[in-house]
């Protein structure tokens, strides 16, 4: 089938699904199943499109043209788009399946404003990823931002959700404005909104008007980095993620913020010629490093499970940006290392989508059953929710980069690329060491979450069941993906490599020459293998050695007996004698207390005459209301409740009427 009709089918199916789920939205579960079926069927054309994108690329074709503006809806799928489409597709399916049951626990808010909006959001995301025209890119981008805004403010009666939504709306629209300005500047140069024209325009501008060219790049950096959640512009993220429904939080972290990275790659690898990319690479890498350090350390201080994960997303996006920056900076001088860094960025992006969505779903599952997000009040859920606990543990260890899970493979690539690039440019080595330290902080906060939620003892005894299968399945599947992609990193690398090649139109060494390895990944620079990671081999060694040690442990023939926890002889309820999440790492947390400053902005105040004029209550409404009140008060005095008095009024009234009639008649 032609790519054109595949794309058409895909969008049409999502649209039909949106309409159908809107029609049946009175029945929460049914609406969810309808949306799921729509996404599942839309998967087929989307998967074919992704396969086509990876295998031979979908050549550009026009859907719609606006010649007067120099804009046409040109669509193409190259491996880079295909990679992002694949990630979005996987996360979309998992999140919708998860939401079917999850959305039943909202009492006040109907799903009519969830599933249809979510499906439109997915369609807009596909549009962003395939369009080759900046104007239509912006249209889809805006559609995506608006739909995600409505999903963030889903809980109508929660002030926190409304406030977070407003913040998201304002910040992302400021960013969109930056992008619009940048696109218009490019359009003024070339007269066309097409990506290829923009690339040429950028090349010309860098020579003729370098100041404007760098202004355009700065505006685009601000625009995309805001969406990606890079600090300080990413400040919307820690507010918006926790308040959205958990399925949507998974999508926000798994797919939406990734589009900011997509934009950055398109701009700084695609638009910017390699010759002038070093400075911008350093800027992106520094922004990423700041983000990953502050994100990880701030996450360490959080006690709200979803807010903690949101800060962790900032940190992990920081890793991706760091690698992207190193890659961009190395494009001209050390293209082999640029391949390593860009592959690390894209691989971490894929991995992050897997484990962070899994973790948000896990936090959502706990919230669904216990109604709690406060880590201090949770505990001891390991045996009650084994599937959630197991997949969250796997996801957490992957997030912390514990080998052999998938987070390690990509963090390894990122850190290796920093250290190797640092041999020439020492600044990258320092950034790599900061990234190493931040991954320890990451480890610290995931252990805190695991210790507080699943291990330990519950303060209030939660007697809960495991979540329904439709909620457990996506978590377990994503956790399984974390293990699979971690043990066999060469599989995702096979998809990432063509995407790296496609990202840099100026040409770059084939990823296969730099990142080889039959059993895993090895980095070969200038013919010498300088680093290697073979998870299968290390894992096999670990398993064999652990099994031998297990044999050693059983050798003594010790009998096993279960005993209660020993609290120095005192008999306490285990819920009372417990170590609360907020007590973890106290000395360390005190040392880093000021790392995430809070600005308290005040609304601007108008001069007092204006304010007085604007307060219509005081000079218009209140006087009128008081007058009315006084009149009705005096009227009510007449109603004394004595029949004789009423009779008297009637008689008086009759006399007056008769008198009036006589006057008029006479």
């Amino acid at each position, binding site marked *: 089938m032609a790519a054109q009709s595949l794309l058409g089918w895909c969008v049409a199916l999502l649209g039909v699904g949106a309409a159908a789920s809107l029609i049946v939205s009175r029945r929460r579960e049914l609406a969810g199943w309808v949306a799921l079926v729509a996404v599942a069927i839309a998967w087929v054309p989307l998967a074919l499109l992704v396969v086509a994108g990876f295998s031979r690329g979908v050549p550009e074709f026009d859907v719609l043209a606006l010649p007067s503006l120099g804009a046409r809806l040109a669509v193409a799928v190259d491996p880079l788009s295909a990679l992002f489409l694949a990630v979005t597709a996987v996360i979309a399916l998992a999140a919708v399946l998860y939401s079917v049951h999850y959305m039943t626990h909202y009492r006040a808010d109907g799903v009519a404003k969830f599933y249809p909006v979510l499906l439109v959001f997915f369609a807009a995301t596909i549009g962003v990823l395939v369009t080759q025209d900046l104007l239509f890119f912006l249209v889809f981008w805006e559609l995506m931002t608006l739909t995600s805004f409505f999903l963030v403010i889903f809980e109508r009666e929660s002030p926190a959700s409304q406030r977070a939504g407003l913040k998201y709306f304002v910040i992302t629209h400021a960013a969109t404005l930056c992008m619009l300005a940048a696109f218009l500047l490019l359009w003024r140069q070339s007269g066309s909104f097409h990506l290829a024209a923009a690339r040429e325009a950028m090349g010309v501008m860098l020579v003729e008007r370098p100041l404007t060219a760098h202004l355009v790049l700065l505006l685009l950096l601000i625009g995309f980095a805001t969406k990606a959640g890079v600090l300080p512009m990413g400040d919307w993220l820690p507010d918006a993620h926790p308040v959205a429904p958990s399925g949507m939080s998974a999508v926000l972290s798994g797919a939406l913020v990734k589009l900011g990275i997509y934009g950055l790659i398109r701009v700084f690898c695609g638009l910017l010629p390699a010759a002038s990319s070093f400075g911008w690479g350093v800027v992106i890498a520094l922004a990423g490093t700041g983000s990953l350090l502050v994100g990880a350390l701030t996450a360490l201080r959080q006690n709200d499970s979803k807010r903690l994960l949101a800060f962790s997303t900032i940190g992990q996006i920081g890793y991706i940006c760091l690698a992207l920056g190193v890659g961009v900076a190395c494009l001209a001088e050390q293209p082999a290392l640029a391949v390593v860094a860009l592959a690390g960025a894209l691989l971490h992006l894929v991995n992050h989508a897997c484990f962070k969505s899994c973790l948000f779903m896990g936090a959502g599952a706990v919230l669904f059953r216990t109604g709690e997000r406060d880590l201090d009040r949770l505990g001891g859920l390991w045996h009650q929710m084994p599937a959630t606990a197991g997949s969250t543990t796997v996801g957490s260890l992957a997030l912390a980069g514990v080998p052999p899970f998938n987070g390690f493979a990509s963090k390894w690539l990122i850190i290796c690329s920093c250290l190797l690039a640092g041999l020439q440019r020492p600044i990258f080595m320092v950034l790599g*060491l900061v990234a190493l330290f931040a991954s320890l*902080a990451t480890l610290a906060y995931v252990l805190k979450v695991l210790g507080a939620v699943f*291990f330990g003892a519950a303060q209030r005894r939660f007697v809960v069941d495991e979540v329904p299968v439709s909620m457990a399945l996506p978590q377990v599947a994503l956790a399984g993906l974390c293990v699979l992609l971690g043990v066999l990193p060469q599989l995702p690398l096979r998809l990432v490599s063509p995407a790296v090649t496609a990202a840099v139109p100026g040409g770059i060494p084939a990823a296969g020459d730099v990142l080889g390895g039959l059993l895993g990944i090895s980095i070969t620079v200038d013919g010498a293998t300088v680093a290697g990671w073979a998870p299968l081999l290390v894992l096999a060694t670990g398993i064999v050695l*652990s099994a031998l040690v297990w044999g050693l*442990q059983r050798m003594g023939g010790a009998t096993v007996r279960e005993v209660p926890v020993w609290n120095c002889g005192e008999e306490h309820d285990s819920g009372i004698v417990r170590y609360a999440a907020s007590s973890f790492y106290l000395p360390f947390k005190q040392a880093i207390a000021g790392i995430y400053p809070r600005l308290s902005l005040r609304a601007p105040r108008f001069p007092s005459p204006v304010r007085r004029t604007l307060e219509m209550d005081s000079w218009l409404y209140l006087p009128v209301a008081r007058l009315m009140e006084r009149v009705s008060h005096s009227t009510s005095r007449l109603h004394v409740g004595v029949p004789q008095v009423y009779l008297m009024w009637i008689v008086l009234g009759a006399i007056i009427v008769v008198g009036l009639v006589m006057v008029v008649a006479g």
Partner: protein
Amino acid sequence: MSWNVGAVVGLALLNAALVLVLAPLAEGVMRKLRALIHSRKGPPIRQPYLDLAKLLAKEDLRVTPGLFYAVMPSLTLGAVLVLATLVPMGARPPLGFAGDVVVLLYVTAASAVLMMLTAFASRSPYAFVGGSREMMLLMAVEPVMAVALVTGAVKAGSLSAGAIMEWNAANGPTLSMAVAGFALLLALQAQAGRLPFDIPEADQEIMGGTFIEQSGPRLALFRWAMWAKQLVVALLLVELFVPWPRFGLLPVDLVLALVKAMVVLLLVAVIDAVNPRLRIDQAISYYAKVAFSSLAALAFAVIGM
């Protein structure tokens, strides 16, 4: 890359077995030295073996049911033995091609992670206190190790531990490697869980902290893992930063490395015997200072000293 499967498997097993067998011996010697400093007679050097044998035969008391909790001690010791296969001992590390120094750093952390997970799973508040302290200590110590190893990587131009060892053996002592080696020595004290940094266990204070609920065979494996870890990190230190003299003959180089590691561990034991325990915040600020100072090694390496 050409490598002989048999040689790799043989060397890997040799490394793991050596560490497993010799770790209690090193511990015994360290205990003896400690006793001598305290003017005590001290236990016989074979005492750690006897301790292990006794613990392995004792009753296994568990506070948490389930497979996950049951396999944790074996996984922990297994992780330390994997670390042993990534560290050069007389020759290039057997699994060096499968894991470079970055992998090595993460595997070092992995054994600590397994211990902390066990501590949290044992539900005792003392274990939580211990686990929380262990994590803070890890955050303070690992950067020091990282800086030391990266300094070696800068000198050798490769992230492989074997390449760093060979570069250092061929090129002789340099200022940057000396500083980095000294930093790693300071880090070893905490990696070995020795005074003044035995804060996560702190017997007199939180009664073994991380290990409070571990007994019998489980405790045996955790103790073994701690002893093995200190030996492996000591071996890493001597092989990467003091690899001279080198004869190119595996048995000779191996014995030499073990002797040098023993000397380093005796130094650790001396520091252990004459110091009181620090508070965790003092330990963090101490290692923060060490980490920043060790950046000097990196700076020296970058300018070629």
